[in-house]
């Protein structure tokens, strides 16, 4: 259980975390989502007491992190897999953390086995690949068998096998009743793992809901119609309070109705349809729309065309053809 109340952090004139309040609940994976520079890492550093808040506070199991009796036995964190002295062997790295947390030596062997690094335990970690470094970081996080786990962008730079491993690890940790708090700047990653979403942009809370709510709320259905009676269709859509806009290739995108409703409506008004297909905006798109106003650095596209839009939305040709 992590609770942030009005958490704020300023660096000079910049506000990295702006009046953030949220709760991370046990037993599920909470995705912490935001564009690069949104303040995700800063928030995690604030939770761990690495940075000091400028205002508000954050507690772990009801207490500030620095007051926990044995922090690693309550919270395991992977902020940066490179936060390791490369000249120290994996075993000794974990051993010094185990000793600092009053954990028995056997835990070191156990977590090494858990992440599959037993064979290289005696090797200095500077020779480790990115994936091995990530595994070492996770071993350190698991050392105290903590009830809360925090991962900052854990899949960054990993190969597909590593990504899959981390995903299933997080799922099994949540299934064991633990609190899993994982940040990402990729909606697609969260879509596959998270149960709950906390979305921030420019340090501010944008959305705090379950993944199902997020999908329902943000993947507004629209329908693509192709019809010889364009004028009539636009008028019809307007008459029921919907907007039909030109898709550019001759078809219309109608928002606010699903394919069935629109098909029935067109049938009643005797408008011929040549295509009728639901269009679901991807969650990635929904996320980008949501955070569009809160991206710090935006790259323009050649030709000045705005990114996204229906042209990039997933198209599901589920129901195409003449209806009337």
């Amino acid at each position, binding site marked *: *259980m992590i609770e942030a109340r009005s958490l704020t952090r300023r660096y000079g004139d910049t506000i990295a975390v702006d009046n953030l309040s949220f709760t991370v609940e046990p*037993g599920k994976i909470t995705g912490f989502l935001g564009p690069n520079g949104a303040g995700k890492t800063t928030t995690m550093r604030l939770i761990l007491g690495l940075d000091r808040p400028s205002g508000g506070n954050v507690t772990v199991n009801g207490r500030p992190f620095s007051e926990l009796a044995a922090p690693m036995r309550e919270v395991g964190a992977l902020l940066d897999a490179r936060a*390791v002295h490369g000249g*120290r062997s994996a075993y000794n790295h974990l051993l010094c953390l185990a000793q600092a947390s009053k954990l028995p030596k056997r835990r070191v062997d156990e977590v090494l086995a858990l992440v599959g690094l037993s064979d290289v335990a005696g090797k200095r970690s500077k020779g480790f690949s990115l994936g091995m470094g990530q595994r070492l970081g996770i071993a350190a996080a698991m050392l105290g068998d903590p009830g809360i786990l925090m991962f900052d962008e854990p899949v960054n730079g990993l190969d597909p096998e590593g990504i899959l491993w981390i995903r299933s690890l997080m799922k099994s940790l949540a299934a064991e009743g633990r609190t899993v708090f994982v940040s990402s700047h990729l909606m697609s990653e969260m879509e596959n793992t998270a149960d709950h979403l906390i979305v921030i942009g420019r340090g501010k809370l944008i959305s705090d809901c379950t993944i199902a709510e997020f999908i329902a709320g943000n993947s507004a259905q629209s329908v693509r119609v192709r019809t010889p009676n364009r004028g009539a269709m636009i008028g019809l859509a307007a008459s029921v309070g919907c907007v039909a806009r030109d898709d550019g290739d001759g078809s219309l995108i109608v928002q606010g109705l699903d394919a069935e409703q629109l098909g029935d409506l067109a049938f009643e008004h005797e408008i011929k349809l040549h295509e009728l297909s639901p269009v679901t905006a991807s969650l990635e798109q929904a996320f980008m729309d949501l955070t569009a106003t809160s991206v710090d650095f935006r790259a323009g596209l050649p030709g000045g065309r705005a990114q996204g839009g229906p042209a990039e939305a997933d198209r599901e040709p589920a129901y195409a053809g003449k209806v009337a």
Partner: protein
Amino acid sequence: MATTTFESRTGGAHARRSSGGTGPVSGGRVGLVSTMRSEFTKIRSVRSTYWTLLVMIVLCVGMAALFSASHVSQVNGAPNAAARAAALSDARSAAVTESLIGLLIGQLVIAVLGVLTMTSEYSTGMIRTSLTSMPRRGTVYAAKAIVFGAVALAAGMITSFASFFTGQAVLAGVHANASLSDPGVLRAVVGAGLFLVVCGLLSYGIGAILRHSAGAIAAAIGLLFVSWSLSQFLPGPPSGWFGQADIDKWIPFNAGGAVWEHVSGVHMFSPWIGFAVFCSYAAAAIVAGLVLFVRRDA
């Protein structure tokens, strides 16, 4: 909300299985002792510790042998009895000091280790992991200082005694050697070991203040070595009110060196007063480092 919190906390703990574990892990609040054990593992598990300490001992012992040998050759190469007697007297009076002269360089080596004890945490990013395992920063700072201080004490004493005995063994060739039981000798040899410890701790504080290895090493060398080198160029006592005599004894190396009689004279501090002055420099650096270590973002 309170109910939710309670249920989720206990529920979480009960539902939880220890991943990859054979059972729940041991308990107890972490504190200074557990952090010191951790710090000892850290310092003994990187090669730089061994290399640095080995270099310090070899340098100091080597310089003791070299300087003592030069006295021996002066005695043996004296053209007549008077010159030989003068050289022998020189060798005898410098027997202790010259055997410890390696500390001039040895202090820089222990300074590097002191700096690295703190700055390597920052340069590698390990500090974030360390503070996640023990967020009470004053404790971390103290544990690091104590463990490093203990290692430096052992290495410092080995260095000073080995240097002393090496120098005396060489000087014994012309019977110019001193003995630990001679007046002030034991104090000088023990003081030399302590001097190295304080050099290291001073540098540890500088490391905590600056957090960058190169900058902190440069600052430590500047304070310990360069300030002393420059002081050699100060005008002598007769030249005015702000001359060498007023400043010299306050130079860290001179103040700290008084205890092993690197320098002595009417305008220098007495051994333990000088050492106390040197310790107060180190204390200032350590306290400043502590304040910054506790306050700053990691």
